[in-house]
């Protein structure tokens, strides 16, 4: 008699169908194993926003009673496996119904397994993952984040490869035979077996990982909240710590966007013409105006959509870079103004060593570029 659960953490819209396929695949396979299950999404993630972290779950059990017991929680909190469908989510999960930054391994049970789709080695991922008070395992399915849209699905076998890896790291959840049986297509069955054979979990100890305290805040109660559904506007301008002059637009102090990003803009201040277009066009008003009238993308406010890169009229000024290349959210302008030479070195390294990825947003001309790129 037992129950087990799997959570799939993914990028909203871009990976919605992927997450659904994985959760449904688990429930179908469990049925072949003679168990019962249910697959569901976290309701507060809906309607999903492009790239915003979201969750779906699969719970399987031997009996109806056990299943009910497990489902009597809004969000299963002792998962056998957490599947992370995009490795940039290893930095944490911030859903759009905001409650701070949730470590990616937070809802994993002791000795459970975090299964990540990534090209990165384990120690590189562990650098980003918050420390956990109990040991757990980390396993990867080799591959970049599989992104598609709301109405289309990129059938690149990521779903079945994750299921194959799952059967290896948690055979008590679903068996390999059941997964193979549930998949008719022989090519996909081969992908399942390959992933099963290749996945190698590594143990993660309590002293491994990012030791930062995850960002969190307390929600107010009905006696302390503003009445009449009023949300007060922020002051027009905020002081810039350590800066004399410049301009920081008003931002909600509790609304950060660290983990909503898959890529971030890096800015070459030497080529910048101060044309203001990035500042004007940024949908999240993420650019701070510096005392010398440059535009500095603030990483507390940037959601990584890439509009700035798309609208920048200057060649080699704004470049979107995979979020995995960064370990902090420091100001690029401050780094540049302190030491222009090292900044220039840092910038060219970031651009030349950039790990491949897409932020999933499509801007004018970008889709045509991608098609041209794929056909060559």
């Amino acid at each position, binding site marked *: 008699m037992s129950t087990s659960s799997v959570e799939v953490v993914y990028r909203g819209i871009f990976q919605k169908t992927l997450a659904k396929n994985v959760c449904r695949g688990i429930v179908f396979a469990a049925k072949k194993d003679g168990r019962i299950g249910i697959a569901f999404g976290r*309701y*507060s993630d809906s309607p999903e926003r492009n790239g915003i972290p979201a969750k779906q779950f699969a719970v399987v059990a031997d009996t109806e009673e056990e299943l009910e017991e497990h489902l009597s929680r809004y969000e299963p909190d002792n998962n056998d496996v957490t599947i992370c469908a995009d490795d940039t989510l290893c930095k944490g999960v911030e859903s759009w*119904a905001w*409650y701070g930054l949730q470590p990616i391994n937070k809802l994993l049970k002791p000795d459970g397994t975090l299964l990540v789709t990534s090209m990165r080695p384990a120690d590189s991922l562990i650098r980003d993952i918050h420390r956990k008070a109990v040991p757990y395992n980390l396993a990867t399915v080799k591959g970049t984040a599989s992104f598609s849209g709301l109405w289309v699905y990129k059938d690149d076998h990521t779903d079945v490869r994750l299921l194959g890896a799952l059967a290896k790291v948690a055979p008590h959840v679903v068996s390999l035979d059941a997964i193979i049986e549930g998949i008719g297509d022989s090519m996909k069955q081969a992908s399942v077996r390959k992933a099963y054979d290749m996945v190698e979990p590594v143990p993660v100890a309590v002293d491994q990982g990012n030791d930062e305290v995850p960002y969190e805040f307390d*929600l*107010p*109660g*009905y006696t302390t*909240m503003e*009445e*009449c*559904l*009023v*949300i*007060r*506007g922020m002051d027009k301008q905020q002081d810039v710590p350590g800066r004399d002059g410049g301009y920081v637009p008003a931002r909600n102090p509790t609304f950060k966007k660290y983990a909503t990003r898959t890529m971030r803009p890096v800015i070459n201040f030497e080529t910048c013409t101060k044309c203001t277009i990035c500042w004007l066009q940024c949908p999240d008003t993420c650019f701070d105006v510096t005392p010398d009238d440059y535009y500095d993308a603030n990483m507390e406010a940037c959601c990584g959509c890439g509009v700035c890169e798309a609208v920048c009229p200057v060649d080699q000024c704004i470049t979107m870079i995979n979020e995995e290349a960064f370990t902090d959210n420091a100001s690029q302008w401050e780094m540049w103004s302190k030491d222009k030479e090292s900044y220039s070195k840092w910038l060219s390294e970031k651009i030349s060593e950039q790990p491949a990825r897409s932020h999933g947003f499509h801007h004018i001309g970008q889709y045509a570029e991608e098609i041209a790129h794929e056909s060559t």
Partner: protein
Amino acid sequence: MNPPKSATAKKVDVQAARAPRSESEELISGSEAISHAVKLADVDVITAYPIRPYDTVMQYVSQMIANGEFDCEYIVAESEHSQFEIVKHASAVGARVFCGSSGVGWLYAFEALAVTAGLRLPMVAMVGNRALDDPGAFGVEHNDALSVRDLGWMLAWVATAQEALDTALIAYRVAEDSRVFLPCAISCDGAFLTHSQSIVKVPSQQMVDNFLPPYDRGDKQLHPDNPITVAPQANEDWVMEIRRQNDMAARRAREVIIEAYDDFNNQFGRGGEPFIERYMMEDAEVALVGMGTLAMPVKVAVRKMRQEGKKVGFLRVRWFRPFPTIELQGALSGVHAVGVIDRDYSFGSTFHSGALANELRSALYPLANRPKVVSFIAGLGGREVSTDNVIDITGRVFAAANGGEIDDQDTYWIGVRE
């Protein structure tokens, strides 16, 4: 040849109409009384969409505007939904507003009605009670106004044109109190009140100004100088707190209503008891309970039965929201049986009773010596409730009090053809 329109318009001395003076007496209908209150409250924005019997109010208001007696933004919307949405937004930017409808017109505005209460906007509305379609009937039933009973709307029922005018002034004062900030609907029975005229004391502007302070939304007012967002999208981590705030506002309304009636009684020398009216209740052994213009035939019947030595009294519920639980418990704890006459229905509900009977039964349940409750449905669709009907009802209530063969777990339909 017809005379030009300007020749038929009533000539009004604008200065005199606006000058402070003592009360005047006028022969007016309940709808006209409401329109006088709207003018005296100096309402800023009014929206209208015709539906009988509420439409009489919009006629009187537009006449006042045409005559130059009254200045406001008066907008005829393309439907009730827009009608209520417009005043909802006007209220958010700090305008005192008035609106109204009847029957299914009120229901067509339902989305706006829900959010008006949800956003804590102090709209005052007149509901000319009318049967819901189908059949397309004009007569009174209370189901239209009662449909918003769970949303935070305050609901008052009036019995006379005078009470309609007075209650509208009180409604503005209570709704716009920052402790409350909830909308209020004043229900006027179609035909019996909206279309019949009686002598009404119309107070002077000065008297009303002394009683009713200007609407001040404070720092909740939508204004470019006060940048706020209202009506955000929120999920399960916020909704319960928001509902609880509305619950607390609805609870606070009770004290604010009591204060307003105290002041009104002091300043105008009338107004009566907040929440309920007691008629011959002092030594009553059985009590009849109802709302609205039903009071007239019931009072006549009570007087008649009193002459025959029957100790019967009448208790008229003036405010359905907030529900006068404490007052009803106090007034009815001494009687042996209560007969509730609903001019509404709640199909499939407890004992198939109307809304008032079900609420009242629930209010009396905690009493150690609770009276028997016999429920009646009468007067639907504007059918007359005669004094004979009331005497018939009272006979059954006495029978219940004396242990007779009366079913207190079902509902009697009075005056229905079999």
